[in-house]
């Protein structure tokens, strides 16, 4: 099934959830309202003609004016894929977790939290995954400034006389 047909199905079933569709660009995608992402995902996974059983990728993206979480879904049975996007505010990026839909979302969401500080409500174990627990800041945010040192070790430049 083509992405556009999937978008139509979403639109007819969840008219409030759909914020915009992008059919023009290099990748067709649909923007979903943050609050209804779990419902939409559940629908996409369970509906017999869609069956998006696998969550291929979940990425956080930071634009200077907004945050985005992108879901790439794929169906092994029908061999089709779809891209969902959720837009969030940069000040308080927060959305419900989809770990209830796909377990695979677990680590991806932790990573998005680790790198962007996006909070996934209801995630069973939302803590840093790649960086140490006492790390400060979210390094992949565009405005992130790398700290001078961590636990007394210099981060940016090393050794006296090195520049």
């Amino acid at each position, binding site marked *: 099934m083509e992405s556009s047909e999937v978008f139509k199905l979403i639109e007819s079933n969840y008219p409030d959830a759909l914020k915009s569709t992008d059919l023009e*660009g*290099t990748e067709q995608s649909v923007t979903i309202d943050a609050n209804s992402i779990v419902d939409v995902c559940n629908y996409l996974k369970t509906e017999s003609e869609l069956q998006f059983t*696998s*969550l*291929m990728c979940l990425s956080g993206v930071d634009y200077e004016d907004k945050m985005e979480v992108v879901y790439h879904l794929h169906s092994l049975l029908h061999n089709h894929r779809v891209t969902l996007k959720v837009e969030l505010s940069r000040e308080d990026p927060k959305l419900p977790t989809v770990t209830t839909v*796909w377990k695979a979302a677990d680590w991806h969401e932790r990573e998005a939290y680790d790198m962007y500080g996006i909070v996934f409500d209801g995630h069973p174990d939302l803590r840093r995954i790649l*960086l140490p627990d006492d790390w400060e800041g979210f390094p992949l945010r565009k405005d992130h400034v790398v700290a001078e040192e961590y636990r007394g070790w210099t981060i940016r430049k090393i050794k006296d006389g090195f520049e």
Partner: protein
Amino acid sequence: MPDLKTEEMVVQMGPQHPATHGVLRLEITTDGEIVKKIDPHIGYLHRCFEKHCEVLNYHQIIPFVDRCDYLAAMNNEHGYVMAVEKLLDIELPPRVEYIRVIMSELNRIASHLVALGTFGLDIGAITPFLFTFRDREKILDLFEMTSGARLLYNYIWIGGVAFDLPNGFVEKCFEFIDYFLPKLKEYDDLLSYNKIFIARTAKVAIIPPAVAIEWGITGPNLRASGVDWDLRRDEPYSIYDKFDWDVIVADGRVGVLGDSWSRYYVRVLEMEQSANIVKQALEGLPSDENVKSAVPRKVKTKEGSVFFRSENPRGELGFYIISDGSDIPHRLKMRSPAFCNLSAISDIGEGLLISDLVALLGSIDIVLGEIDR
């Protein structure tokens, strides 16, 4: 003894532990030797790959892609380069495609050889490890001939490859395949069908297909669970549709579907198929062409995004690139196969013995470089 007090024990496995294949730490709660709970800690090799992608241009990223999955650098390059080419709309000379496929499949064999060897090591068999490394060296020789490097090649470029195949490569490659295919029998005799090896790995740490899909497990691990899915066939990229080969799906011939032995043996059979593809690609290799004719001087991508997946030895390697039209990606997210494969371990590993956990960890074949990125 009704009032004997017992306690659960928390054991730290790693970051320095021979079975964790790098710097993974598993915090295991055990009851005797039975694992009750696993809490994996990763990130000991977090090398800020995605940050580098946001400050380097498209050409400069290739060496960093190499270093993510250092066992299958060619496959990684191939995946990344194809993702960028999708943003660029480049028409490739056919010879380039053939060279890329040859390199990727040779690298797949090399990567699987390491996987088999280290898995044997985890189970306690030391000699197979040295045998697989002996044969891997022969592949590395071929790579060294073409790219000059043994491990991290920076060979596949956007729109082409760095160098044309050197003189004598094709003959040496045929020679290698003739040498290699009989060696598979040796591995079977020494390890695959060893009674103790089967006792240790068959019916151990079973991943049912539903669980595998749920956790996003891909690649040989998914096929070992009996799911017939290979991107090279089902979403053909490059020129894989030109070759005649089989997707290996486990049949649970000594144990059940999805056990450690199946995961191991899928890799053995996949090496045979890869060698098969290499053979066909060598036979069909188009004659001399300029392999760098399509390499763009400056990468000027269109604005937009692309998500591209390719079949890495460990599973589906995805690149999600968001471009803002400049020569530096706005965002590059790597969907690393081993990251997803490993995330399932806390689910699958519960209730196993510590020895079985080692067998599970060895059989899913993780590379910490791409897990932590």
